[in-house]
């Protein structure tokens, strides 16, 4: 069991190193959570009632909009809304111009190739009896932020 004897110290030392550095795991490569906390949460909203409703003359409303507002409040952040179609919003997410995209997005969304979907936090049944699980999208690889949002949705969502 020579191999194992080599591995155990390796794992032990590296976990010591990691905890010693005070690095929170997982971390955000682009530092999203640190920037949002006490700052601004930039949210893209696509019109999809009853989850999200956008208007010309006032701020959006809907179940997901309220959830995001609560999430922002928990992080002590102000929400800045951006309205548009999913395509444009996901592109902005990829460029790092948005932090979250909402709009009644289903868990089998094709955008999962280009954005990180949260775990499903709510379920709906449409007229034809089909079940849809709902997710939010965040920027790829911002894992600390993703886990923070999922933790919030675990508490507040209707999973």
């Amino acid at each position, binding site marked *: 069991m020579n191999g*194992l004897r080599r*591995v155990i110290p*390796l794992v032990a030392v590296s976990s010591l190193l990691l905890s010693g550095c005070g*690095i929170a*795991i*997982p971390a955000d490569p682009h530092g999203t959570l640190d920037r949002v906390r006490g700052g601004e949460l930039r949210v893209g909203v696509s019109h999809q009632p009853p989850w999200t409703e956008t208007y010309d003359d006032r701020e959006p409303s809907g179940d997901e909009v309220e959830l995001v507002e609560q999430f922002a409040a928990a992080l002590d952040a102000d929400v800045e809304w951006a309205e548009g179609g999913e395509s444009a919003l996901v592109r902005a997410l990829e460029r790092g111009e948005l932090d979250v995209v909402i709009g009644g997005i289903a868990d089998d969304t094709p955008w999962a190739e280009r954005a990180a*979907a949260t*775990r499903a936090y709510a379920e709906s049944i449409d007229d034809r009896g089909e079940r849809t699980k709902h997710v939010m999208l965040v920027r*790829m690889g911002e*894992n600390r932020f993703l886990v923070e949002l999922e933790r919030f949705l675990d508490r507040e969502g209707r999973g």
Partner: protein
Amino acid sequence: MTARFGRNELPEQQARSLKRAIRIEWATIAFLAVAIVLIYLVMGSSQAMKAAWIEDLLSLAPPIAFLLAVRIIDKRPTPRYPYGYHRSVGVAHLVAGVALFAMGTFLIVDSATGLLGAEHPPIGSVQILGQTVWLGWLMMGVMALTIPLPIYFGRVKMKLAEDLHDKVLYADADMNKADWMTAVGSIVGVAGIGIGLWWADAAAALFIAASILWDGVKNMRAAITDLMDTRATTFDDGRPHPIAGRIDDYLRELPWTDEVGSRVRDQGHVFHVESFIVPRNRQVPSLSALTDARDACIDLDWKVQDLVLVLVDELPEEVGGPAGDRQSERNR
């Protein structure tokens, strides 16, 4: 029933080793089945975990090939398969090698694309007993669990492979021994994502893919050379097998032989030997002298059963005869 490889009855020690090998290969399959399910459950979108998962899937091939082969080579030679069924081992070996090679190539391309495209792998959380836990911790935990057993399997199989002269078992042992590096590689990759190094995952996947590819190249080369009837080597292809020299030495000592040279090919487990003999003074020996010589050679090693003695007036060049420009035995 006596354990056998085709016509060869196994000596007691080899029969015991074969039983142990069959047991440990079943244990390997059971272990891999559990590991494959566990890794699949926590794999998420980590490329390194995907590579480790595929490697575990491929690791199923050698044990299955071995267990199938020991059933097939049980059969004795028939008129349709006059050399017996031993080559099934070589065929299984080649198939496993090609699978490893193809999968390694695919994973290298797949991981390199991710690295060059700067894909940031998202790893979210799971909910366990009401707690939200980062999936990366589970990934590292599962991979750490898969480290100790393959190392143990690898060591035991290596000894059995030598005992049974089984190259599929050897290839399997070699892969098991290297498996812990795959596990550590994927742990490092996921830990890298954990501290915000998005490229660590793809880099670890590349490392694992390279090790799969290397396994494939090694196994393919070994299987192809055996199917090409290269001279028989030891179980690890380390050096020419000593049996050819021992047979030649024995035959050379006989009073009725002048020059001796043998061709030995590895049929998988057992050897097929053709010994060319130039009789002393060109005198054909008696049938009983030939039979005694053959029986004595077979007693030298359990791997030798299929042995042919050929009386010739001049040794073929390949086994030590004089260099000639003839194109065939008759056309000189």
